């Protein structure tokens, strides 16, 4: 049994595993979205019958809500870093509210598309690609909201402390990703594809 003295400097630091893991997940998710976006772009104008993208209204209010939720969650991250739990809870709740408004807006939009314009996922190729791409994003918003609400519950029962700041930030990364993907989806579906 030989002994090796510690020689390496005491500042042996590794990146946070939470961040690395979340960034890896984001890379993987990006690939999923890439495939759906490619399918959407490739199939633009190839529907042989049925409604066309011209029936879409640009969801500006929705977009503003979702993008500003990135700002509010960033303010929440800052609040918890400085240990201001009540402020954190307020920004966090506002973030969730903005996310819920976004989903509500999507519901209103889909309601109009389905019952006024007669566009469903099976009506034509445009319907298939539109609902799957926008729906995939909405699914991610729902998953994000479930995770955000868990944190909100923990905040309300007083289980969130300053030392959880890093975990909160890792979770926020996911929310920022969901917002960033919306920029792509918005551009492709409502600007380029219309």
């Amino acid at each position, binding site marked *: 049994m030989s002994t*090796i003295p510690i020689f*390496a400097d005491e500042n042996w630091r590794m990146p946070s*595993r939470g961040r690395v*893991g979340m960034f890896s997940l984001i890379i993987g*998710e990006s690939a999923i979205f*890439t495939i*759906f976006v490619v399918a959407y772009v490739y199939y633009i104008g190839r529907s042989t019958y049925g409604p066309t993208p011209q029936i879409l209204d640009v969801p500006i209010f929705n977009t503003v809500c979702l993008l500003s939720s990135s700002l509010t969650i960033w303010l929440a991250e800052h609040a918890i870093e400085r240990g201001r739990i009540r402020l954190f809870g307020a920004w966090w709740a506002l973030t969730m509210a903005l996310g819920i408004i976004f989903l509500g807006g999507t519901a209103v939009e889909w309601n109009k598309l389905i019952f006024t314009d007669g566009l469903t*996922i099976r009506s034509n*190729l445009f319907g298939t690609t539109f609902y799957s791409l926008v729906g995939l994003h909405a699914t991610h918003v729902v998953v994000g909201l479930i995770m955000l609400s868990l944190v909100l519950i923990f905040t309300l029962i007083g289980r969130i402390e300053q030392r959880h700041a890093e975990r909160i930030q890792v979770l926020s990364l996911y929310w920022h990703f969901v917002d960033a993907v919306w920029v792509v989806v918005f551009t492709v579906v409502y600007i380029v594809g219309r």
Partner: protein
Amino acid sequence: MADQTYPIPGSLDAAPSRGAALLEWLHSWVVTVDHKKLGILYVVYALFFLVVAGVEALAIRIQLAVPNAHFLSPELYNEFFTMHGTTMVFLVGMPILFGFANYMVPLMIGARDMAFPRLNAFSFWMTAFGGLLLYYSFIGGFGLYGMGAAPDVGWWAYAPLTAKAFSPGHATDYWALALVVSGFGTLGTAINIIATILSMRCRGMTLFRMPLFAWLMLVVSGLTLITITPLTAAQIMLVIDRYLGGHFFDTQAGGSAVVWMHFFWIFGHPEVYVLVLPAFAIANEIIPVFSRKAIFGYPAMVAASVGIAFISLTVWAHHMFTVGMTSVSNAFFVLSTMMVGIPTGIKIFNWLATLWGGRIRFATPMLFCTAFLFQFLIAGLTGIMLSVAAWDWQLHNSYFVVAHFHYVLVGAIVFCIFAAIYYWYPKVTGRMLSERLGKWHFWLFLIGFHVTFDTMHFVGLLGMPRSIYTYEADRGWGTLNMVVSIGGFVQGIAVLIFVWNLINSYFHGAKAGNDPWDAWTLEWSTPSPPPPYNFATDPVVRSRRPLWDLKHPNDPDWKYER
């Protein structure tokens, strides 16, 4: 701090005590989050399916051994080759390689577990249930029309055959959902391995002191993140088409069957590298240890692996030369495919240079690795032949292609998997595998492999297409097919010897000790089998071969490595 010692003091060796009751023992395996137990579960799960898919392959070979045979019904034949391919790729190849990564990476980088132990358990069980879901299709796949059982659309599942009209029943859905489920498991494991390697390395273990095994697993996991996910996306589209009446691959509504081919091969070709890079990783560990030399060209090996990962993302459409692409696309995919030969060539030469002048010990792991070198070279050369579009037009969908990719999947990957099992079995169980049975296994498997797959090239050159149920006697393929089938059974016998060796040596093998091969990476500093906490004190490393430094204090590696 100088009183810290390493490897761990013997006094802390807690011999793992098996629970007295069988139930308790089983329970401990189901609820475990220990990376070593999960690694073993992965490997055992994969070996089980290796035997299952091997039996399917042998049934296929009986059917094809003579012209006009009726051993299998045409429907069952289609199901068997579909299930053989899907099983071997998703339930054997991926799990066994991730199993090795799970077991070895934390030990090699001096960590006590993976970065996310519970995610690790979740990933394994997702993969396991994906496999069960796939095989449940044999009884559950009848569907509304009472047609079909297991999936029978080929492992590539080209549209429009997968459309509801042409594949009624639920068999294809089982296939799609099983791959989505096991895909999530794979994604979780890949994330876990990346986080482990980037965030859990012990003191002094810089990225460029990591064993190459860990490096390649990092590359593979990164590649997995962006190759498994397109498959998941494509399967979701397929399920939307089949269940919700979508039109992604419905040509009558403006959809495109060729888009499915693109999406599938964007996954499918990098997948080959996801499978083969871990095989390289294994060879990277075994060849130096059995040549008694440090690996030649460590930075070149790392660069070549990263290069392979990047190039592999740009070559997918070489599976589609016969679809009818433009000349420009054909030329692009020809050239990008040929480029893969550069980094793989670098690797071959580095291994040869490692062997050069070494004191080579031909123990069983080394025998398998030596065969791997030759076979992988041949597989690469036929790959370059097939990358030429004009040559591919001639041989596409023939048995030449089948022989080529089996040369990669069996000749390179399976050989390295066997090498890895012979190499690390002593670490995992504390017992050596029998060398005598190992030699029998090696030679029989080698002979069987060459009889089968060398001959298969000629069957392909004579024009026999793949995936056909049977053929007429006057085609002149009968004798060669019989030879191929005989080789298949020789391999089957070799695998039986191997399984017997695994079981018998577990109870009667010679005691291995900590370091039976006189190796240099950290896993050999732990007891065999390693305790649940791996290292009693966190190890510290100064070079790529920490155990060499320990064994040769007068001539340590860190004096030379910069």
